[in-house]
């Protein structure tokens, strides 16, 4: 195998970074990527402010008993906002349970995003209408679906692509391997974004993988790969944007590993102090993507107090609306249990529906 083919497939030896932690510009942009424009960064900043407000509100709703469980995106917003921003209207997103902020940024109604997590039906939105697959719970299974849908696009001659999100822990599942392989063999327009936040619930990356970095998995499938500072919005936009463009124009799949951190516990039900110390968390707070981007945009004179206030207000409006609409229990009709198991209920389900109707009547009476 020629050395240049191999080099093309390997990621950069260190994560791509365009903004330093203090918001200053890292000089030079690795070949193949383009620095995002200031308007692109401004748009991302606005969505990040709103996304973070959404996330805080969702966490608050768990405390008020309005959400059963919430896996926070706090700290991972650069990944999730970039994931939404690089999507065209025809592209699809395949998220996990962790990616609520990406969905909100994609334009999915926040209440519909939280349907699953409040204990209502498992997918609150119409996936086809918003081009977002259901938030996936069985780890890594969705990356195969993403690959299949990407192949479907290619077969139909569409110039669109799919972005599949996955966590660091989930890369250990066999489905991740099979998806990368199918994607490469069928040259599917799909980009895999691994949000490596350092933990799978309590299990640190060091117990998950001995690879130099997860991005090095790409070459084993002939899939191009890159590693990125996942708290650097500019770098995330640059790399993901390039990867999606490449995919759309027939260049095939791409694996992106974003090094980031989950600032909250796994979910509100988790106690992160059992497995990591505050020291570590504090270290990552210094790398927070939002102040970094904000500082940068102010430094280059592109962002005003006014802009920030406007975004914050938008966030407050979204939060208030969310609070209000989540404040009522939805009324789920028990009889709907049987509606969508099959296109038409089987005779057996029809009988069971009758049984439940009788039970419900008895309970009323």
């Amino acid at each position, binding site marked *: 195998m020629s050395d240049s083919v191999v080099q093309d497939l390997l990621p950069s030896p260190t994560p791509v970074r365009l903004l330093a932690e203090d918001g200053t510009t890292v000089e030079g942009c690795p070949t193949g990527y383009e620095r995002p424009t200031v308007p692109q960064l401004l748009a991302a900043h606005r969505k990040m402010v709103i996304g973070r407000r959404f996330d805080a509100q969702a966490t608050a709703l768990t405390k008020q008993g309005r959400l059963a469980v919430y896996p926070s995106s706090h700290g991972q917003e650069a990944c999730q906002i970039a994931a939404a921003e690089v999507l065209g209207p025809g592209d699809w997103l395949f998220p996990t349970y962790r990616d609520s902020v990406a969905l909100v940024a994609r334009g999915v109604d926040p209440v519909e995003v939280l349907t699953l997590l409040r204990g209502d039906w498992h997918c609150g939105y119409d996936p086809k209408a918003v081009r977002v697959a259901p938030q996936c719970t069985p780890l890594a299974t969705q990356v195969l679906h993403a690959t299949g849908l990407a192949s479907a696009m290619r077969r139909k001659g569409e110039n669109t692509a799919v972005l599949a999100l996955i966590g660091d822990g989930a890369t250990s599942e066999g489905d991740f391997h099979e998806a990368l392989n199918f994607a490469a063999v069928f040259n599917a327009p799909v980009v895999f974004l691994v949000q490596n936040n350092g933990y799978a619930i309590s299990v640190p990356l060091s117990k998950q993988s001995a690879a130099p970095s997860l991005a090095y998995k790409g070459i084993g499938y002939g899939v191009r790969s890159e590693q990125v500072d996942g708290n650097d919005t500019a770098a995330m936009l640059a790399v993901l944007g390039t990867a999606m463009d490449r995919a759309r124009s027939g260049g095939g799949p791409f694996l992106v590993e974003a090094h980031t951190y989950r600032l909250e516990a796994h979910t509100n039900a988790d106690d992160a102090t059992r497995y990591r110390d505050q020291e570590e968390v504090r270290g990552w707070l210094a790398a927070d993507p939002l102040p970094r981007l904000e500082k940068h945009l102010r430094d280059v004179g592109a962002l005003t107090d006014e802009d920030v206030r406007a975004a914050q207000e938008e966030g407050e409006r979204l939060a208030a609306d969310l609070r209000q609409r989540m404040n009522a229990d939805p009324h789920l009709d028990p009889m709907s249990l049987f509606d*969508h198991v099959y296109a038409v209920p089987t*005779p057996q389900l029809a009988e069971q529906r009758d049984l439940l109707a009788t039970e419900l009547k008895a309970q009323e009476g």
Partner: protein
Amino acid sequence: MAATSMAQALNAALRDALSENERVLVFGEDVGQLGGVFRITDGLTAQFGEQRCFDTPLAEAGIVGYAVGLAMGGFLPVVEMQFDAFAYPAFEQIASHVAKIRNRTRGALSIPMVIRVPYAGGIGGVEHHCDSSEVYYVATPGLKVVTPATPADAYTLLRAAIDDPDPVVFMEPKKLYWSKEDTELRYDSEPLGRAAIRRSGKDATLIAYGPSVPVAMQAAKVAAEDGLDLEVVDLRSLVPFDDETVTASVRRTGRCVVVQEAQGFAGFGAEVAARVQERCFHSLSAPVIRVGGFDIPYPPPMLEHSHLPGVDRVLDAVDRLQFSDEPDGRYLTGVRA
């Protein structure tokens, strides 16, 4: 009319579906150039091209998960699992996604597809190639499960499975691939879910499916020589289940033996027996008796004949349907099901 084997009938069904519906895609391991290890997809790549019938990498979860995505994108995948036990790697994709996506999305996403599974034994196959795996699918709400016993049914049921709005696990009894029938292959768009009475009789009902149907028919033939008139019901569709046909038959005959090739414990025959006694209790003159394979891993080829339920095991069961009041010394201990 020509003698058609079940393998030919299945091949014709795929061919006709590919012709009539450009959304149909056929894929799996070795289904392309080779035409499948059982040649069920023979000639399809040559006729329809690599875009419509193609080989995949060797990974069953991959095949099914990839099919889910293609179905979300509007295609109609018909995938082949090479053998029964080699579908197990796909179990999570089947149980957690294929079966549930419609329900999860309240019908917004439907993913009709057909998962073809050559199953069961009787062909001298080694371990992992002969599992009766139907029970795993029938116990998973959201899947339909269908199994033909004749070439004509193989054609029409596979066409119906492909046309069905729900995902269908299509179980092909391997040992019947080469069984032939003089038949015209006709697809009458009848929806899935109807059993067939293969033989009418008044003394007892044999309920069978897939590989056990010919065994039941043969048993009925032998019993007829002894003056016993057995009805044979071929279930065809395990899910949805045709309670109507089954219940009517057993209420009429008053006696019932369920024949399945699978291991007996918690096999599909348990559901059949449980339903029949629930719905026909007062018509029954004897317990519903199950006949099947033993509760063992599929045995080696040299012993499979001892494991598989044959005509004798079925007739022994029929003997125990208490047709007369005279006690039978063999069964007084009541230890045997």
